[in-house]
């Protein structure tokens, strides 16, 4: 075992013969070096690689293609503003629209589990219930993994599944947007479409946020 040499003292009358035994070495510089290296590696390394969340945007429509007015069915539109979140269901009807429908009113919710998550769980019950059923089947080994993935994908793409449009105003932050997309992924929403906000919708959001 290495030991610090006790070089000092001793009585003068002692024998000159060196003590036999294990050779001793001063380890302090080595320890210094080891910890210096250690500090360096601790400071410079990153452990986990960053995670990414994938999001597929709708393709830009061909400008030459004819514009077809699409009827939105079974959809909810989220409007994001500075840390606030509003929504309405299905089609948007501006005040005094030709269809004679009442003008769309915005509802407000928040990013807490009781807010948007509860709302989405209710609205997307169709997919979630189906998925829960498939989960059970998968656990009981009634269906294969690949079948499970296919069935879930089919359920998400079904007509009865909820579709979500996301619109943002100038004050919405990236945190708001990513938080919402994250909630949509938690709620197993299949179709997520970030789209441009219209002037009428912007007016409604402004009226709500200015209050």
């Amino acid at each position, binding site marked *: 075992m290495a030991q610090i040499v006790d070089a000092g003292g001793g009585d003068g009358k002692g024998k000159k013969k060196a003590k036999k035994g294990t050779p001793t070495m001063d380890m302090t510089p080595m320890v210094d070096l080891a910890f210096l290296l250690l500090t360096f590696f601790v400071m410079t390394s990153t452990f986990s690689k960053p995670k990414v969340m994938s999001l597929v945007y709708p393709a830009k429509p061909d400008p030459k293609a004819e514009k077809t007015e699409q009827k939105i069915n079974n959809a909810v539109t989220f409007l994001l503003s500075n840390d606030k979140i509003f929504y309405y269901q299905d089609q948007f009807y501006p005040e005094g629209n030709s269809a004679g429908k009442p003008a769309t009113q915005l509802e407000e919710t928040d990013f807490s589990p009781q807010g948007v998550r509860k709302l989405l769980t209710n609205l997307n019950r169709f997919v979630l219930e189906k998925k829960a059923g498939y989960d059970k089947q998968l656990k009981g080994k009634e269906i294969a993994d690949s079948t499970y993935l296919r069935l879930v994908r089919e359920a998400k793409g079904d007509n009865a599944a909820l579709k979500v449009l996301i619109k943002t105003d100038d004050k919405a932050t*990236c945190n708001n947007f990513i938080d919402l997309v994250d909630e949509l992924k938690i709620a197993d929403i299949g179709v997520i479409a970030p789209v441009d906000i219209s002037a009428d919708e912007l007016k409604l959001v402004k009226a709500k946020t200015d209050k």
Partner: protein
Amino acid sequence: MAKASKPKAAPAIDMTPMVDLGFLLVTFFMLAANFRSDEVVQVDTPFSISEMTIPENVVMITVDQGGRVYFGISGKAEAKENLLKRMSAKYQIPFSPQQIEKFGALTDFGCSIQEMPAFLDMSSDQRKEFIATGKTMAIPTDSTNNQLKDWISYGNAEMLAVGEKAYYEAKDKGYDPNINEFKPKFILKVDGKAEYLYAKKVIETFRDLNINNLNFVTGLRADPRKPQ
């Protein structure tokens, strides 16, 4: 007669276990480390439940809190050098061979192509200061002068060439590679506090190039559906 007491020796500590421990930790960190890359700007990313790790072959666009845009591609210096040569030809800005070599070692950058020669002549710290003090508006994304679009489009072309080469190499070795794994992925690293408006500008640029599948860098958050 009482003996004169011996002078006390310095207390001896056996350092061996400490050295052992020190080197064990050093070895561990050396092997486990993947080095933090030298990025010009640090951003606080938002959080999500996604557990997908960042792919190897990427074109990464960073948007900082002030909405400035930075560009970086992964991979070999050769691809980056070719990319700069293409941009140099398009914008008629000459670069010296030393500058091109420096560009090959860059992780990312944030300046217009006109500022690029001066940017490349700076040291790493000077570059960070150049950006932090707001001397540059980073990469222009305006509709009249969308340099980002060219960076992405040429970067994509270079990365595809690299990926293609790697794919055929893997094939020659007798593997059965999946071609999609060799295609470049597009990563958006946005600051959570940045307005979405700025990210949208970048996203629209991607969509103009018909690149619709984007990946956001996010911190990991616990999935509420899973039992803890």
